[in-house]
């Protein structure tokens, strides 16, 4: 790794720090923001996320190699961490740090996209079921029961087994479309309780149309658990993606997803522990940060604390 790469990494860290400080400054005036940052791990967690996002975006600057480059398969495979290869090289002679950074793009990207698909579907289904109730609700919730009955991994395994090779976009879509059941239940429960509140009745008495009632009165007040479940959802998707890739059924090799990296390093774990350990640590760290942010958000957005 060159001096420039090190400087770029330092720059990314500084940028992440500044970003967190800025978020803190902007939200610190509201009571929710204050409660969020009162959570002891909120700020560190945000920093971890900001750092990974920054280096992922600036991948070419912070890494010395392309992620696919086998530097010197005969002499530089399973090279221990050094100044040149800060996290060592993998059994195929690729720089683990470079792959980790490019892998962040894939792993975080899949997490965010699949979560977006899942949360959007969940909010729409849960919102519709909760607001219209009756047979709409009954039908949708039975669908959700079935969805929840089938463990996601098995559902995905089945699809992968039947369709042979699944393109990445389809995989993301699949992960998203198998991940909204819990969210929809959550949203439905929240909508059901919000719609019983009197300000919703007041809006209806004033002649507000259902769309206005849902968009302006119900959903904003049901948003807190949705946001929390989105934060936790990214982490879950990342874990799922890692598992699938580890089994060789996720992101097609040699793309550097973190799950693939663990899988690639695993056979040589005894002699080159770093190749599997660092991507595993990266996943754990990011998921932990997402969970911590989720916890802090839960406290910050808790409507019961709003009146205090």
């Amino acid at each position: 790794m060159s001096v420039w790469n090190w400087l770029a990494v330092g720059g990314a860290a500084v940028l992440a720090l500044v970003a967190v400080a800025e978020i803190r400054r902007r939200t610190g005036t509201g009571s929710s923001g204050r409660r969020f940052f009162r959570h002891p791990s909120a700020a560190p967690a945000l920093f971890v996320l900001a750092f990974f996002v920054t280096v992922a975006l600036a991948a070419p600057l912070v890494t010395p190699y392309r992620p696919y480059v086998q530097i010197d398969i005969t002499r530089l495979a399973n090279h221990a961490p050094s100044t040149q290869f800060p996290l060592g090289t993998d059994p195929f002679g690729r720089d683990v740090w470079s792959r980790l950074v490019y892998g962040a793009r894939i792993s975080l990207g899949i997490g965010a996209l699949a979560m977006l698909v899942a949360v959007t579907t969940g909010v729409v289904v849960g919102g519709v079921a909760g607001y219209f109730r009756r047979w709409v609700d009954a039908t949708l919730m039975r669908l959700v029961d079935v969805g929840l009955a089938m463990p996601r991994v098995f559902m995905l395994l089945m699809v992968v087994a039947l369709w042979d090779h699944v393109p990445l976009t389809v995989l993301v879509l699949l992960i998203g479309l198998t991940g909204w059941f819990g969210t929809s239940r959550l949203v439905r429960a929240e909508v059901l309780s919000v719609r019983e509140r009197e300000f919703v009745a007041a809006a209806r008495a004033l002649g507000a149309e259902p769309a206005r009632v849902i968009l302006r009165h119900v959903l904003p007040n049901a948003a807190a658990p949705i946001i929390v479940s989105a934060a936790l959802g990214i982490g879950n998707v990342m874990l799922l993606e890692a598992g699938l890739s580890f089994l060789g059924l996720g992101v097609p090799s040699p793309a550097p997803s973190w799950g693939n990296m663990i899988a690639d390093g695993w056979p040589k774990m005894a002699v080159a522990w770093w190749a599997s350990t660092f991507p595993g640590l990266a996943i754990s760290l990011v998921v932990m940060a997402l969970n911590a942010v989720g916890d802090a958000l839960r406290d910050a957005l808790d409507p019961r604390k709003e009146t205090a």
Partner: protein
Amino acid sequence: MTEPLLRVRDLKTYFVTEHGSGTARAVDGVSFDLYPGETLGLVGESGCGKTVTSLSVLRLIPEPPGHIRPGSFIEFAGRNLLTLAPRELRAIRGNQIAMIFQEPMTSLNPVFTVGDQIAEAAIVHQRLSRRAARARAIEMLKLVGIPDPAQRVDHYPHQMSGGMRQRVMIAMALVCHPKVLIADEPTTALDVTIQAQILELLERLQAELGMAVMLITHDLGVVAGSADRVVVMYAGQVVEQAPTPDLFARPLHPYTVGLLASVPRLDAPSRARARLHGIPGQVPAASDWPGGCRFHPRCPYAWDRCREEEPPLLDASTGEPGSHTVRCWLLTEPQRRTGRPGS
């Protein structure tokens, strides 16, 4: 008069506010006595500190965010409850001083039968056997007027109505025959016909068991019907204290007067749409009491002295000295009291 059973002196219970930046002085220097066998009414609007006062007596304030300031003093049977070791305090809680709460629904544990919950205190304090405690529980259910006590003892709280649950709460509190019963808004969550039942029950039990009752309520009507003496609280302080007939016949603090004028009365002359008098403004926040007399921003008589200097409790008794005290400077300059407040 006899010796007081419970002597509260300069009680200060403060809370750290939500944002951690300030202190809410919820109870700020409250003193009163409770005599054996009497019913003392503690009256005030929400935020005046009456519930915090009652919880402080048994040290049931959640700490943090709350804490009782050093210098406060609650004497019961010759001992300061505030400095007792936890173990000694537990021997008094539920045994000599018992409490009932406003929400009988949430104050009962949903997963235990009412019999178990009533028996529990007897088992802990009087070392009764399970069988004896169960018999006692049935006896208590009968005492509080629950029909079919032998069946009801095995029921869960959710199987009972609100009024029944409050009777269960009372049975639970009285199982060890305490000397003092603290009743914190015992009828607020109940309908008026059920409220009448519960008040009558409390009256009867007090006569039968001879305990002293501290009745915390916002309802002056309840106090008028049940209490022997009344303590009126405002903004964390006692503002007036008197025997019940005296207080209603001769209210002296402008707050007490305003409160009485605010109550819609069934016995008022039958003229629909008469105006109520009310008190202008609202109760200030406990983290931000006004300086001087805490009532002065809402008081129709306030003058410079009220804004600058906090009045002490002044004696206004016509009978026994100290029986009627008022925290108001008007007592020193009665000529300022002219016209009706609020008009």
